[in-house]
């Protein structure tokens, strides 16, 4: 088989961290290679080097036998490499055609050749079965459609090698399946593909070959047909990490009750008459593809937005109008979806973040003055109790790893023994060790009687932790099913929004 792509001895360091360590890898014509690894294993860095976003400290890249100059995306594109980024690189206020055309014409040209560009785009879209309206604004497209545009952008530039970074992160399972079918079609047209993933099942079902990265090193390459999920899991994690298991126990009284809650109005409706109940000692999992109302649900239970109709009660008291601080006072603990954007103020010291939520309580301030000694002692205690590594109360929070930052946030929440805990994507972007630690804390809180609402896009996680599960689709929520009844088929169904049909059938 001819090699379309070769990477040799790629090394990349960021300060003290070696993100890629002497990686050698190749891709054959018409092949689908899966690049498997945990979060932080160096997959994205490697692909960014290949695409020229970063220059490697060491090593070389060859495309179709030609050496690639380092650090130049333009050279990569011209050599026939296309990249579909995990966080789409689209301008939301511009049209599909504009997004696709950008960079394809010489900048000195006095007039864009729109007509021929449109024809070419439509032709490619037709050929690969990626239907799209060239004049639609990106902001009006669904996530799946946006991904289609990302792929079309690469194809429009005549990519022969396509790199997809976590392509299914934002797709529902049926959509993901369709995507992989399309990708398979593309290899028949002569394209070669690399996709990055940390999901074993899709690696097993969609790839020809798997390369496993761990801590910046290439630890194994396997033909997909000759490996197993179990072997891949061991290769990926490298050590035996057991995720804690949910023990059966008595479930208490309803703690958080939402009835017919609507957030937003008209076109802007984000939650549509949703109802759910979380009992003491119970974890209620909310599953669904991202962008279906999870953000609004998170904001609602954090006290940042208020319902336009419906009732919300926490421990029997009306909680619909409470702001963040009152919510906390009423016994709610909140783990936000985005650690960096919402969870902490990165530039501040650990201790300031640890007490920020309760700065105005008499525990941490008196007569408007911050009790720094108390705050720091409290933070030192958190560091100890929640095993936050490599930090003192005075460390700038930004310097913590993702896992340790999450432990800080969890610690801040759990140390006040909340009645209700909102855990919004609590393990996103964490490695196995940190995931296990977060799961253990949540399960311990459950055993201690807290009512926990877990919003997760990781089905495995939701099933493992939750006592009951509800799906969220387009701002609406299914009825709960128990964890025992949550078979992959049933979850797949309710996550595509067909719970009503299902209810009819049963």
């Amino acid at each position, binding site marked *: 088989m001819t090699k379309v792509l070769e990477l040799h001895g790629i090394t990349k360091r*960021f*300060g003290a961290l070696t993100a890629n360590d002497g990686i050698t890898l190749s891709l054959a014509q018409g092949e689908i290679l899966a690049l498997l690894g945990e979060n932080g294993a160096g997959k994205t860095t490697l692909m960014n080097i290949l695409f020229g976003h970063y220059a490697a400290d060491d090593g070389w890249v060859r495309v179709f036998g030609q050496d690639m100059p380092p650090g130049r995306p333009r050279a990569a594109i011209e050599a026939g490499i296309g990249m579909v980024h995990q966080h789409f690189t689209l301008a939301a206020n511009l049209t599909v055609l504009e997004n696709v055309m950008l960079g394809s014409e010489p900048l000195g040209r006095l007039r864009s050749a729109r007509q021929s560009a449109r024809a070419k785009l439509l032709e490619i879209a037709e050929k690969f079965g990626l239907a799209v309206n060239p004049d639609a604004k990106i902001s009006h497209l669904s996530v799946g459609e946006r991904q289609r545009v990302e792929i079309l952008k690469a194809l429009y530039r005549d990519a022969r090698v396509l790199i997809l970074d976590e392509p299914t992160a934002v797709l529902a399972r049926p959509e993901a399946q369709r995507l992989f079918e399309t990708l398979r079609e593309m290899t028949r047209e002569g394209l070669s593909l690399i996709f990055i993933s940390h999901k074993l099942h899709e690696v097993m079902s969609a790839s020809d070959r798997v390369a496993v990265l761990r801590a910046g090193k290439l630890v194994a390459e396997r033909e997909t047909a000759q490996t197993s999920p179990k072997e891949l899991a061991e290769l990926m994690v490298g050590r035996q990490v057991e995720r804690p298991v949910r023990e059966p126990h008595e479930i208490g009284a309803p703690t958080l009750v939402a009835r017919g809650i609507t957030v937003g109005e008209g076109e802007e409706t984000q939650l549509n008459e949703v109802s759910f109940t979380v009992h003491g000692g119970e974890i209620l999992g909310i599953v669904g593809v991202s962008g279906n109302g999870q953000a609004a649900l998170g904001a609602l239970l*954090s*006290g*940042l937005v208020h319902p336009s109709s419906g009732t919300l009660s926490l421990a029997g008291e009306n909680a619909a109008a409470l*702001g*963040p*601080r009152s*919510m*906390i006072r009423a016994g709610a603990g*909140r783990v*936000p979806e985005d650690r960096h*954007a*919402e*969870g*902490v*103020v*990165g*530039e*501040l010291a650990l201790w*300031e973040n640890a007490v*920020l*939520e309760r*700065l*105005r309580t008499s525990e941490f*301030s008196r007569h*408007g*003055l*911050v009790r*720094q000694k108390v705050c720091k002692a409290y933070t030192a205690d958190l560091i100890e109790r929640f095993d936050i590594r490599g930090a003192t109360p005075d460390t*700038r929070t*930004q*310097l913590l790893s993702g896992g340790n930052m999450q432990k800080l946030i969890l610690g801040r929440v759990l140390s006040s023994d909340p009645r209700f805990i909102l855990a919004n994507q609590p393990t996103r972007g964490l490695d196995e060790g940190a995931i296990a630690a977060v799961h253990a804390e949540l399960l311990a809180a459950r055993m201690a009687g807290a009512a926990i609402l877990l919003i997760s896009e990781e089905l495995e996680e939701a099933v493992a932790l939750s006592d009951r599960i509800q799906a969220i689709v387009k701002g609406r929520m299914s009825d709960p099913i128990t964890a025992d009844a949550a078979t992959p088929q049933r979850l797949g169904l309710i996550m595509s929004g067909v719970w009503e049909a299902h209810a009819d059938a049963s």
Partner: protein
Amino acid sequence: MRLERRSTTPLGLAIVAPLASVVAALVLAAGLIAAAGVSPFLAYGEMLRGALGSRLAVTEMLTRATPLIFTGLAAAVAFRARLWNIGGEGQFFVGALITAWIGHGLGLPGWLGVPTLMLAGMAAGAALLAGPAYLRLRFGVDEVVTTLLLNFIVILFVGMMIEGPLKDPLAFGWPQSVPVDGDFRLPDLVARTRLHIGLLFAVAAAGIVWLVLARTVFGAEMRAVGLNARASAFAGVSLTRTIMGAALLSGAMAGLAGAVEVTGVTAGVTTTMSPGFGYAGIVVAMLAALHPAGVVAAAIFVATVFVGADAMSRATGVPSFIADVIVALCLLTMIVALLFTTYRVRR
């Protein structure tokens, strides 16, 4: 080449940064002085002598530094909360105007009248900034433009008042407001100079602002909001209250600058009484890296440049606008220097 975040900023570097930026600005300005046909060494020597060379010079310099400390504090407070208050000049003038207006013929003894006037000046400055802060919070209107435009409006308003209702009949047609009563003139700090006890007020204000920023709940919340508004809101910090609070404190400081300048130096208000105190306050705050203690030092430096340049200009013929050039260059070199205290260059 790329920039990499330092995990900590060495203390030495934090102190060297402003010094290095000042040196860089002076070197750059030296070229312009040479263009005037004067040796930069001679010119800088004259500047130093003009600002620090005699007791009188020092008192003049400190007199000039006094309002700069206040306007520097105003900018530092606002910028910490990421509220871009560029309206220090306007707030200075409303503070000055209201002081002259109330302070003329106010039947109070001095010990009561002076604090009243100071409070009035603060209230006027705070009120002037509350408007743009409200517009930003309520309508999302960028406060940079509104505070800047308000500067022009205020200057015209001051002109209108001192040619109209507040016109001083004893000023022989010179556009000047009525003076504050003699009882409210601030006592001299050094006899037979213009230096008044307002300097002590300014230093005290820096201490109080430092206390507020570093030790109070409000100060901590303000820093948090300035650094990451979204995370602060999530943690339950009220953005409205915090930003409005910062606006009131900032406006009050700039307004106080006007009140102190009127009671301490000018007695009446003219449209030319500020050689850009409000704008220079921004430079002072940046040179101080937004730290209140640094504000005092930076204000003294900027005042030295201004007062020294006047003397130097008289001695050598180099236009005194060189002071504005140096101060502006300091702002630009300082933000670069600050970058290198938080980042290091890699390869």
